């Protein structure tokens, strides 16, 4: 028997989980292997050391505190169920009024800025026309747009 196997079996024997048929081979190995015999002794010492660690009793009234929390849970244990969408989106409920107000303000601001922009653009275009300049770049000769204009008769003018 190899030492690793013997040590595993020693651990199982400490728990009373070693099958009887393995005992003679294990004892034979321990008699012949001082390292594993020392391991067996130190396992016993470890078990003794573990027994030294005691912890206090739970605080008095623990059961009452648990039962008070249980009482706050309602009449019957609940079966788990997914939260309905209405509940999941509950945080959106106060939103519509705010959203409407925000949309209104945004709309007013946008329309004001568009008016100002449009005025600026039309002023620029008027100035260009007055100056006799072509406001837009002409289309390239053989571009698809130019051919389309040709087909529509626009190019003949």
């Amino acid at each position, binding site marked *: 028997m190899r030492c690793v196997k013997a*040590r*595993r079996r020693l*651990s*199982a024997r*400490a*728990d009373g*989980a070693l099958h009887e048929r393995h005992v003679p081979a294990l004892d034979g190995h321990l008699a012949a292997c001082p390292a594993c015999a020392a*391991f067996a002794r*130190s*396992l016993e*010492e*470890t*078990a003794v*050391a*573990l*027994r*030294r*660690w*005691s*912890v*206090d*009793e*739970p*605080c008095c009234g*623990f*059961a009452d*505190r*648990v*039962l008070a*929390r*249980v*009482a706050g*849970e309602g*009449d*019957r*244990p*609940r*079966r*788990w169920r997914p939260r309905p969408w209405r509940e999941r989106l509950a945080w959106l409920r106060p939103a519509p009024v705010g959203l409407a107000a925000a949309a209104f303000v945004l709309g007013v601001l946008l329309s004001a800025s568009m008016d100002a922009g449009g005025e600026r653009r039309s002023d620029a275009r008027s100035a260009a026309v007055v100056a006799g300049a072509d406001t837009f770049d002409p289309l390239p000769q053989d571009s698809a747009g130019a051919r389309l204009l040709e087909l529509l008769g626009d190019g003949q003018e």
Partner: protein
Amino acid sequence: MPPPSDEDLMLSAGRGDRQAFALLVDRHHRAVSQFIRRFVGADRHSAEDIAQDVFLSAWRTARSYRPRAKVLTWLLRIGTNACLNHLRGRRLRDRLMESDQHVEDQPATPPSELDADSGVRQAVEALPPTQRAAIVLRHYHDMSYVDIADILEITVGAVESLLFRGRERLRKLLDREKG
């Protein structure tokens, strides 16, 4: 009349019987609290918080309890998951703080546990969580391999392996402390 079994009480609790659940809490709160204290190395108050959460969770899921599992095994399975979550949270917190401050925040060990037990306690706390759980369940709760396997949701072979490796490590840690 013999007292009702844990399983009967749990089934009654699943139907909303608070008295039955109170009896179960009374029977098992010591074992659950002590398991949690040894597993997470927490002070009494933190351990109590976790233990309360375990029983509350047991009440909430009482309907899903099936009598094929022992009630204490079932409670300790819930407790193991709660402890693992607690340890994950603590690790994350420690990593986030990365300063000496978190050492100060650690719960102080009660004086009664500082003397003879502190070496053992530190050695057990140095084990990886699953080895620690297996060692605590075997040595302090006298659980069989089958029950430990049920609690940790692993095979019996894996329990044997965890216990072997846990003891091996504990032995080295305790020897180092002695030497």
